[in-house]
């Protein structure tokens, strides 16, 4: 029971990170219908910017953790957004009217570029960060001494995810930008006829996705304490899996999918084998898609003749 609870907490934490990355995939897919393959690497860049910001802030002498955390969060979100914007501007906008496979190839190209760029400028070795946030709570302890721990990092990750999820759903549901995004999602041509700047809306979608990926990157850094230039690929594939699982194009779906993938991965490693955890995640993706082709919360695709 205690072991189960502990795994549940770990799974929710990991799932939050996947969910935040998955939102970026799902928003971009919703609005322009393409897999932004470089998104996983945007997440990786976000983690690196967060690392640099952390070290810089500690060097500057700011030791009060909440302030430091907030500063890092803002810095990482702002600079990573620039990457999201630039990737869209360079690799996807020129191909907006092109056929579907062209932006997929430029996306894969962008992913290779980002990975190797970071590898060149920051080095290929893993970068460790000394634990910034320590401590936590022991929720319960079994008779044989197995304690269920909820660390402060986990609280921050889950809490921050909830806050961001709420903010973003409100942003999409209530603001004019959100309305513009939903309009572009439904019919880009009609939206532009009604005076919506489609290019700007799409750019902002990428910026929002990148900002969330930056938060996920910071969380990943805090949780594991080590990053390297290659973390983006695996995390990206799993987050995309999460987005598809939840029903691509749906914001709550991405979060649910992320949590499910996180839970599956953690429980599989906890009860079966660590080596095959990715196989479990991918197999479940395939099984869900075969029986539920549009994901959990996705709209079924209507075939038009």
């Amino acid at each position, binding site marked *: 029971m205690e072991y189960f609870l502990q795994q549940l907490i770990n799974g929710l934490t990991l799932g939050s990170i996947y969910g935040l990355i998955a939102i970026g995939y799902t928003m971009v897919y919703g609005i322009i219908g393409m897999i932004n393959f470089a998104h996983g690497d945007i997440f990786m860049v976000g983690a690196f910017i967060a690392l640099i910001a952390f070290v810089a802030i500690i060097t500057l002498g700011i030791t009060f953790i909440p302030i430091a955390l907030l500063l890092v969060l803002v810095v990482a979100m702002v600079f990573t957004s620039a990457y999201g914007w630039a990737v869209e501007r360079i690799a996807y906008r020129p*191909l907006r009217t092109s056929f579907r496979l*062209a932006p*997929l190839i430029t996306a894969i190209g962008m992913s290779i570029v980002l990975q190797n760029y970071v590898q060149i400028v920051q080095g290929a070795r893993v970068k460790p960060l000394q634990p910034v946030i320590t401590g936590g709570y022991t929720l319960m302890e079994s008779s044989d001494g197995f304690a269920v721990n909820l660390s402060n990092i986990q609280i921050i990750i889950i809490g921050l995810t909830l806050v961001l999820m709420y903010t973003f759903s409100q942003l999409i549901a209530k603001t004019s930008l959100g309305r513009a995004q939903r309009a572009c999602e439904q019919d880009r041509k009609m939206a532009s006829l009604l005076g919506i700047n489609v290019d700007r809306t799409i750019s902002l979608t990428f910026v929002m996705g990148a900002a969330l990926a930056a938060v996920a990157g910071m969380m990943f850094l805090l949780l594991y304490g080590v990053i390297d230039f290659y973390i983006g690929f695996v995390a990206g594939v799993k987050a995309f899996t999460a987005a598809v699982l939840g029903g691509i194009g749906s914001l709550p779906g991405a979060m649910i999918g992320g949590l499910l993938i996180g839970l599956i991965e953690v429980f599989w490693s906890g009860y079966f084998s660590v080596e095959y955890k*990715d196989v479990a995640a991918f197999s479940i993706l395939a099984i869900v898609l075969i029986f539920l*082709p549009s994901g959990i919360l996705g709209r079924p695709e209507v075939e038009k003749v």
Partner: protein
Amino acid sequence: MTTSPPSSPGRVFSAVKDAALAAFVALALAAPVMGFQTFVAGTEIQLEPRWWLVGYAVAAVFAGRLIFRLVIGGDGHQPVGQKWFRRKGGRPIGTPDAGGLKFIAIVALIVAFSFPFLPFTDRYILDLAVLVVTYIMLGWGLNIVVGLAGLLDLGYVAFYAVGAYSFALLAQNFDLGFWFALPIAGILAAFWGIILGFPVLRLRGDYLAIVTLAFGEIIRIVLLNWYEFTGGPDGISGIPRPTLFGIPFDRSSEGFAATFGLDYDSQHRIIFLYYVILLLALLTNFVTLRLRRLPIGRAWEALREDEIACRSLGINTTNTKLTAFSMGAMFGGFAGSFFATRQGFISPESFTFIESALILAIVVLGGLGSQIGVVIAAIVMIGGFELFRDLEQYRMLIFGILMVTIMIWRPRGLISSRTPSAFLHERKQISAENVSEGHG
């Protein structure tokens, strides 16, 4: 070359403004990641500012964007450089008519067959040629799935891996030679194509793409972790070399050199490998071209153009998709066997997603469904990759940039004409714009 319109102050001003904006974005991009180098000192991680690097990057972007705006005049929406490559009739270069294509194909064949004996061909170039032809074969194999049937497969490397491991394991456990194992490996790969293809038949478009990607990763992870069977990360070594009707390529008295009264030269084996892969690749091409004229090939293309129409006309879409998947997989399996026998050693590291992406990039960059496009793209990508061998750590970066720029420059691929297999009155070249890309 292009004749730039007369410079007016307004144009220069707007170009400078644009370049300044680009430089500002470059500053935002470069400031954190380039500006500070992280390094591990003892147990702590520290930063070292490198502002000069940011300065270079920003200056380079400013200058680059300014030159781009003033000389090429691209405003971002127009495909860059398209103007240069337009002929008078407005037809882009790379769309020769049917006769021209035949001529090019014959010349290419003659060059390919005489390649090992050309004066500049040394061991290094021949090795590179073997690699390029391997990718041409893989590209042609994937072209059946993506280019003809319109099914987006991001896990093609799985079949390459199945072929390679099938041969390696057959050779290790049953002592089979290359020529006996080759067809078995191909059949096994095709079989896996059906196994993986069957559950994904209901999926379309990007869902199919992501599930095939997942299958590719699953196969790699299983190969990596099933230690007793595949050797895990250590891989399989000591895979036998191919023989010419039982004649090995070594120094022994039964060896190739001794049998034919030649002086022993290690290059003989490379030349032999080159011809093996060339023939395998040509077989792939020949089978594809023939299949395109059979009902099954036409069904593939019809499926790519319109799946609903296909079903309405009584085409069994399930069988059509499965045959496309398994045909593509079979050729991938052949190429995998060849890869195993050439390297003599295989490990899961050779079958990562990047390999799938590279093969797909070759197919798309060449022009979906165009056989000659695959050849050109394979030479450009693999050859270009080797060209930058000395710049070791920069070459993947350059490779990525090349992928992005070629695609933006020519979204429909380097060869932008297609020859439809069904036609009225006469066979014609049509623009690639008129060919659908499929939804599967």
